[in-house]
């Protein structure tokens, strides 16, 4: 470190501290929304790291991100406006203190979740063949999150240019480190073969040299590194929630570089502080004059009328082969597409063989992961923010629970909370459904838990819509997360276009089409279903007619959410009865929502409603019992007959 490098770092640190102190002031004045987490005392971590990063490097920060943000972007004015909820803010006032985005800088308020995203961003740069790196800041408290270790494993295994900075201030919010953190912190990373660095914010030169070396190692060595920076948080975690002893805090000030600098170089410090204050005051003034954040314009209209055409299928292959061919073809045409998943590499080619051959054809773009559903989804999110188009395979739908945080708290939020500065197409596809005796944890249909997450799509494949068309449409137009649920009994089946005498299969003109099995006569009942239940519903439809004189119309959308009610209302207006069959439990599920949607869209049309789902118990392994408890032709017929 040279003498001339010090001044700009100190100057930047003073600016950060000035901003943060102003934010505390504004907070007490009631001019901020929510809370602020200040990094007073820790400013140098970001200020020094910024010296070695370029605007093309990615930085993902946490709740305590203002210092990192100013260091990397110098967007003081936009930051203040953002935290004040103004439309001139860096995220238009949507993100606030913890959710910032500018250029390649991101922050989020969920601990640990952005570590795999950082790995994904690093992977995206590797796949693009750049020299850029991805860095993230976590605190030692976040070391309690499993995401960190899933990600560290893959960062090391895949040689990703990722830098993890651990700001070790020894308090997780209020909990002292010794009460919750066991063992050695750097050893956590070295155990994965990651090179670790140790430094602190009390020794500027050491900090500077260590970070310079760490960044050089990651950038040139294309390997991950972890830097533990011992530091002190001088203020409370958030606001007024500081239970630490006063003496302890006072001892921190004694080694605080800025405090020392103000004593050693009072004139310089005063000058930096005055300059910073002027800028911050002007920023506050401008922000106060600016308008509050605006409501989004929801342009999507769901109640578009649907038109139908006869279903024609010429495809003769099995469903898993069709998807595989579509992926092979799409990866050929679109170099953004990256497949990630467990056991998806050749020769195995995935538990259901959907990705067989892909890793041989595209070894770089097909990534087999450890058993890390959370991390692989997070890596997908990182790839997506990095401009690629990830397709994540979750081996069994039951394991989707482990991806929920990445979908709900990350992927689904990005476009809005970053004020549409990013698009994040990502497909998370997984087999769902029972009927194979896999038992309680490999047979469920838990789609309902993933429904209704704003700004996501939930799709379910069925036997009458060509999955290649669904995936091609997704690859062509997706700009947000999409979950595709593939009923596992579908894979070995072939598509079907024929129907029994008296029924016509039709397909809608939606991007993700709905199938309608229209009776040649007026329906007595509308059966609404999705995925694997289509086969059951159609069998029941035939039997209901032949044996019970009940004419049913079956409707099976591909897109479960957002729900397109127009596909159903027409039928329900004619039949007056709606029976929903879904393979999962029916309480607080897709069917409940479908009923509400229909009642809202066609008041008075419904005279009878029934939901049919899995019994309210886990799915047993025993085959016959499983068949008995899952919705089946018999139970569907019984339900329909009770309605008429």
């Amino acid at each position, binding site marked *: 470190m040279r003498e001339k490098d010090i001044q700009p770092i100190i100057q930047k640190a003073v600016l950060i501290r000035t901003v943060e102190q102003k934010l505390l002031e504004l907070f007490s004045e009631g001019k901020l929304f929510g809370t602020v987490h200040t990094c007073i005392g820790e400013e140098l971590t970001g200020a020094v790291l910024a010296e070695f990063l370029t605007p093309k490097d990615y930085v993902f920060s946490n709740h305590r991100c203002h210092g990192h943000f100013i260091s990397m972007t110098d967007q003081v004015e936009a930051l203040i406006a953002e935290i004040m909820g103004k439309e001139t803010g860096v995220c238009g006032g949507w993100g606030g203190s913890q959710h910032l985005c500018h250029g390649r800088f991101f922050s989020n308020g969920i601990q640990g979740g952005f570590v795999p995203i950082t790995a994904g961003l690093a992977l995206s740069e590797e796949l693009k063949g750049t020299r850029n790196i991805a860095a993230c800041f976590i605190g030692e408290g976040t070391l309690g999150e499993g995401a960190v270790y899933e990600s560290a494993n893959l960062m090391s295994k895949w040689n990703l240019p990722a830098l993890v900075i651990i700001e070790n201030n020894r308090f997780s919010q209020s909990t002292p480190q010794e009460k919750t953190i066991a063992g050695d912190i750097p050893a956590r990373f070295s155990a994965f073969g990651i090179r670790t660095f140790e430094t602190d914010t009390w020794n500027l030169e050491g900090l500077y040299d260590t970070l310079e070396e760490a960044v050089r190692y990651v950038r040139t060595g294309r390997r991950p590194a972890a830097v533990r920076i011992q530091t002190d948080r001088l203020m409370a975690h958030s606001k007024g929630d500081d239970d630490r002893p006063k003496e302890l805090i006072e001892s921190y000030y004694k080694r605080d570089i800025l405090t020392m600098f103000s004593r050693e170089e009072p004139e310089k410090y005063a000058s930096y502080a005055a300059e910073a204050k002027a800028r911050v005051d002007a920023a506050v003034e401008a922000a106060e004059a600016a308008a509050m954040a605006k409501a989004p314009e929801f342009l999507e209209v769901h109640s578009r009328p649907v*038109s*139908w055409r006869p279903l024609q299928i010429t495809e003769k292959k099995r469903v898993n082969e069709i998807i595989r061919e579509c992926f092979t073809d799409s990866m050929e045409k679109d170099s953004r597409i990256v497949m990630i998943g467990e056991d998806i590499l050749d020769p195995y080619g995935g538990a259901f063989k959907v990705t067989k051959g892909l890793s041989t054809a595209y070894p770089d773009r097909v990534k087999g992961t450890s058993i890390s559903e959370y991390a692989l989804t997070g890596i997908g999110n990182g790839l997506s923010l990095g401009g690629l188009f990830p397709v994540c395979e979750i081996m069994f739908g039951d394991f989707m629970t482990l991806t929920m945080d990445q979908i709900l708290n990350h992927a689904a939020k990005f476009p809005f909370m970053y004020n549409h500065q990013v698009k994040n197409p990502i497909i998370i596809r997984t087999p769902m459904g029972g009927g194979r005796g896999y038992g309680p944890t490999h047979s469920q249909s838990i789609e309902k838990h993933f429904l209704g997450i704003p700004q996501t799509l939930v799709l379910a494949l069925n036997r009458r819509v060509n999955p290649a068309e669904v995936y091609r449409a997704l690859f062509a137009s997706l700009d947000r997360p999409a979950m595709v649920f593939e009923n596992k009994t579908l894979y070995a089946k072939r598509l079907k276009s024929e129907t*029994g*005498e*008296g*029924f*016509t299969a039709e397909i809608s003109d939606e991007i993700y089409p709905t199938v309608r099995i*229209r*009776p*040649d*006569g*007026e329906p007595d009942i509308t059966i609404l279903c999705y995925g694997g239940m289509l086969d059951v519903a159609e069998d029941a439809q035939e039997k209901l*007619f*032949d*044996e*019970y*004189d*009940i*004419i049913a119309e079956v409707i099976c959308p591909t897109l479960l959410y957002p729900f397109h009610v127009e596909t159903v209302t027409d039928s329900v*207006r*004619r039949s007056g009865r709606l029976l929903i069959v879904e393979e999962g439990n029916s309480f607080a599920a897709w069917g409940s929502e479908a009923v509400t949607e229909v009642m809202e869209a066609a008041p008075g049309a419904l005279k009878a409603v029934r939901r049919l789902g899995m019994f309210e118990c886990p799915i047993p392994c025993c085959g016959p019992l499983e068949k008995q408890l899952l919705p089946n032709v018999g139970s569907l017929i019984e339900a329909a007959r009770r309605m008429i």
Partner: protein
Amino acid sequence: MDDFVKILAPTNNVNDTSVVIFQLLAEDGAEVKKGQAVLAVETSKATADIESPADGYIKFMVGIGDEVPNGSLLAVVAPKEDLLESFHPETKPDKAPAADRKRQAAAIQQLSEDVTSFGIFDQPVTLGEIYVKNGESTERDTILCRIRKGNHTETVPAPEAGYVHWEMEPYMPVKAGQALGSISGSPSVCAGEKTIPVRYGSLRVSREAQRILDDRKLTAAALGLTGLVTAEMVRERLEPARDSGKEILVSKKAAASLPAFHSSDGRYESISKAKRSEAVFLSEANRDAVVSQVSVLVPTQGIFTACAKDPELAGRFSSVIIFETGRLLRNYRNMLSFYEDGRLFVYGHINIGYALSIGDGLKVPVFRDADRKDLESIMAEKERFIEKYLSHALTPEDLGGGTFTITDLSSTGCYMFSPVLNLGQSAILGVGGENPGKTDYPLVLAFDHRVTDGATATEFLCRLKERLIAHENVLLGRQEKKEEKSASHSIIEKAEREKLVCDSCFRTAEELEEWGLNLVKTVDRYGEEKHICSLCLAGY
């Protein structure tokens, strides 16, 4: 493939969506000439010969007894015999001959390509008579059909100009929200191919429905049912009830107690399309009607005497009945109507259907405006109908539009019988044979008691009887009377006569003169001056 000329199943009338192959008039593979009749098809109303459209060698794609949808490929004609082998029947037939399409397309210009549905009601209706046939063009607001809706009937105008494609058959119940048909810019564009489902592509009968049909030895097609046929639909056809809510319960119970006709000793046989169609129309016509009948006996002596005198009269007497009935019906408009939901639909024309059954099934050719035709024309028309009947040449035009029916079984040796009402009519006249051992024959009038009462019906019959007797008298004395003048009434001068008509039978004075009849001036019971011919006077 261009070398082949295809022969497609024709669409002969609005009610048929299929034809039955009746006869193959050439050997498979035989050489045929253009214009040569090569096969005969049967529709619900007529049998039609289909001619070869070209010289060549024929290959049939259908066999006798096959029932195929309209537009199906029936046969191909190849210019060379050896080409026949190379023809693959998978080749889909055109919906309509190309020439026909072109002609129709030329007839209507600048039509919208869009398909517009018409006749969608918010309550169930029954489709009545269709005025514009399937595939025909229509102007905007032209009346397409009549429907029954609740307690009244109404007409359905065309929403725009174009070609009409019917989705429903006449006299079929139509559910709420269901379109009767559609109008499109092209005769070949079936609405169903775009947005509206194809209605007649399928027939599937539920198990319960099949059981009921089997019990009654019926088929769904015979009841005019298509698509998905449920037991309820079958029961509706068989046992209509006014309160549909109750009806299901009652008819389900009734169905459960139906005696089974099943027996191992025997088998089902298909019946002709015409018979099936007849079954539908007759059961539809009689399901609501309160049928009553009256009869009178008419002496046969006069006929025999007349025929003995003039052998030409033999076999023509039925024409006299048509002639006299036509005239008489002018005074009995109720007989020319049908009951529908508390109102009468009264026909504007006296079109008398005459039931013919002389060896080839029942056919009912219609004498249009029978009241305005003279006896000679009716006799001539009847002869034409018989010729056409025997040569399977009766057309839908010959058979449609009857407003009253006469069924004459006098030549069969049958003495007394119960005529059955036809669809859309409220009365039918039966003519029986000579009462064995006596010298009279019966006239039976079956009528819908909701429209006519017994007294009126009897009066009608009595007047007809009197006319027939008078007619016999006229026939008997035709020659002599021609020169005679009536002495008992003042005779009207010739010049005056020409403008006058008989106020009873509406014959003109001129016509009467030719018949050797007189028109006399009289006063009716209300004191009004009337002119009555000597024929009518006999029963006045």
